[in-house]
């Protein structure tokens, strides 16, 4: 596990360095993800250890958003003043975006056979 964690941090670090050096508008971890993807493609897949560590980390991906979410308490005043436009914009925009993206992709890939995927119970 330690090897895998070190590897993930190294790729994050490489991503952060790339972002800073080229003054990219994208954060380091996203570049790190792209770099690791490229490395996996070159190497022909992750080791069992890396796969397992990634699975453990991603299993609780939701947890990692909680601290930022609690930041809502800093904006109670603005939320109280503008709750209606914020609520309508977020709800409507989220649903429109899901629908537009899904319908466009569905229309373009309809003729492709979708491989069966094993359902996983949450």
């Amino acid at each position: 596990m330690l090897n895998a964690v070190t590897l993930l941090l190294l790729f994050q670090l490489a991503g952060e360095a790339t972002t800073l050096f080229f003054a990219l508008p994208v954060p380091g971890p996203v570049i790190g993800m792209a770099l690791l993807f490229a490395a996996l493609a070159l190497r022909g897949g992750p080791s069992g250890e890396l796969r397992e560590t990634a699975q453990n980390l991603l299993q609780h991906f939701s947890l990692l958003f909680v601290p930022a979410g609690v930041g809502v308490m800093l904006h109670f005043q603005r939320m109280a003043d503008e709750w209606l436009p914020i609520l309508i914009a977020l709800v409507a925009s989220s649903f429109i975006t899901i629908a537009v993206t899904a319908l466009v992709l569905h229309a373009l890939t309809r003729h492709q056979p979708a491989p069966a995927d094993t359902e996983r119970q949450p």
Partner: protein
Amino acid sequence: MSPRLGGNLSEVWVYLAASPLLGLTLTLLAYQGAVLVSQRCNGHPLANPVLLAVTALVTVLWATGTPYRTYFDGAQFVHFLLGPATVALAIPLYAQFGRLRRMTIPLLIALSAGSLTAACSAVMIGHLFGASDATLLSLAPKSVTTPIAMGIAERIGGLPSLTAVLVILTGILGAVGARSLYALLKIDDHAVRGFAIGITSHGIGTARAFQVSEQAGAFAALAMGLNGLLTAVLLPWLIPPLMRWLG
């Protein structure tokens, strides 16, 4: 060295509330409780773990008068893991390499459509219902993963910390509503479902997609990454003319 506070409960609280341990422990407890509730509800989208945990934590912090800063001193250790976890998304993504390659062009077209729709619809609807300019600018990057969205908000003149909250709310809304919407639109392909929720609801949508299937999760992770890249490049050009047009 810990000071001797023997017997005085409120002083013990004051001491612990100022240490990172409490914020960290509370975060994990709240999340575990939220997961338990979510499981009891058979993973019903409304019983979203992020929504439940955030609500519980805000209530506790508000009731005890603990400032967010103090809480975040402890919670930052969890927050930090977002970085390596984002990097780790490359692994499920790689597992879908074959299918991704066959779908490259459709994915890029759907990405462009979704990315533009997310930003423009939020700003235009917000404007229609009278949101202030600062709120509109903070709304624009709301479908992008938190760290990218905060960076974009700063560039286009929004409030990064407000954006962080709007991003999380968008994530929760998408995760809560996607299943019924897909049923309504008759979208069954897990690749399509995952991709659309990843575009709209970034990491929280991706977390939700992983609960459904590995394939949905991988396509959501891809969508989140690509949408982050595209939105970061697009919005600094798109938003100033859009704001001028809206007046």
